[in-house]
């Protein structure tokens, strides 16, 4: 047999044998701590309950909701269309299926935003992108969307518009009776007509 073959076979055995003595190594990439700190400090990682409500109502295809509370809480009450990934199963395969989406923004929420914040950090360290937290969580959701509080009459117009929107959203989510005494029963429509100027409509 050719000497070269013997040499190459020996080389293969040595290289492969060397593998047996290599310690196991896991090269899983993690977010650089400096970047992570920077990201944590950014307010842009939060979305408000109003934004979430708007996205649900408008059936925005580019976002998904993830409830990080326990399964029984999720069964009891959750937002429409939300997935349930309890925070303690975040490191299992299920998160890979749900969170590993580059094109879709994922919004995490819990009762408040503490658990969701923790989940956010874990998900971020697992290398997932486009993850957001619903500010205030479900408590804030109830306070602002389901049972919105009327602003004082002296409040700026933006507050009143927001209130109109929230009342509409409340109707949308609770399916409450339509007999709510409101001037603007448009329900979901939040864009208000601009006030006509005096000059308009003339000849």
């Amino acid at each position, binding site marked *: *047999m*050719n000497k*070269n*073959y013997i040499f190459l*076979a020996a080389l*293969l*055995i040595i*290289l*492969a*044998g060397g*593998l*047996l003595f*290599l*310690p*196991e*190594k*896991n*090269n*899983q*990439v993690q977010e650089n701590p400096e970047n992570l700190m920077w990201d944590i400090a950014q307010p842009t990682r939060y979305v408000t309950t109003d934004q979430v409500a708007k996205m649900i109502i408008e059936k925005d295809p580019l976002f998904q909701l993830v409830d990080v509370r326990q399964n029984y809480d999720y069964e009891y009450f959750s937002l429409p269309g939300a997935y349930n990934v309890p925070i303690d199963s975040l490191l299992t395969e299920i998160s890979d299926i749900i969170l590993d989406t580059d094109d879709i923004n994922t919004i995490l929420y819990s009762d408040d935003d503490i658990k969701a914040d923790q989940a956010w950090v874990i998900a971020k360290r697992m290398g997932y992108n486009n993850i957001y937290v619903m500010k205030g969580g479900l408590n804030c959701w109830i306070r602002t969307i389901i049972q919105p509080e009327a602003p004082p009459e002296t409040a700026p117009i933006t507050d009143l518009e927001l209130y109109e929107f929230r009342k509409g959203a409340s109707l949308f989510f609770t399916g409450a009776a339509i007999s709510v005494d409101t001037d603007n029963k448009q329900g979901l429509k939040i864009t208000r007509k601009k006030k006509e100027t005096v000059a308009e409509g003339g000849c």
Partner: protein
Amino acid sequence: MDLINLNIMGPLIPLGHIATGWDFVIALLIGIAFGFILEASGFSSSRNITGVFYGYNFVVLRVFMTAVVVAMIGLLYFNYMGWIDLNLVFVLPTYLNSMIAGSLIMGLGFVLGGFCPGTSYTAIAIGKIDAIVFTAGLFLGIFIFSEAFPLIEGFYNGGNLGSITMGEMFGVSNQIVAFSFVIIALIAFYVTWLIEKKVRRKITPYKFE
């Protein structure tokens, strides 16, 4: 730029070092290289390829097993050096039914036609008429398969084991799998060499120059 912190790890596309739009360009380049090496290894000759079945030429087995062994060892060392994250490397899911049926059909086509899909194209590239006929049959087969797919879909998706590796299946580490595979490959090389010698009587071993 701080070169010390320039810590690039593979796989390059999943980790975003290369934008996903480039994968077709890279696929084209790798495809050209693959075709070149197939042709250079003599795989555009049906005699070389079908020699495996008649026992006079095992070059196919040697080339592919060498490629597998080198890639296996290389990837594991790369993983150890931190140049690649093996967890992110794509593992083709295993569908037992279609793998077994597919390999039977492929082997039959191999021994009947004298080409596998890749080598038929390299043979076309050097102007072989039988390869053109073979490729026409290949497209006919693809057409029939696509049309008949609803009938065989259940069978096709059966026996799904997921993206499983040998190590996971047998519960041993990748290193042990690689080492055993090297031993198996070397034994296969030696045994096929013996068979070749018997079948061909006068074997002229390849000379390294």
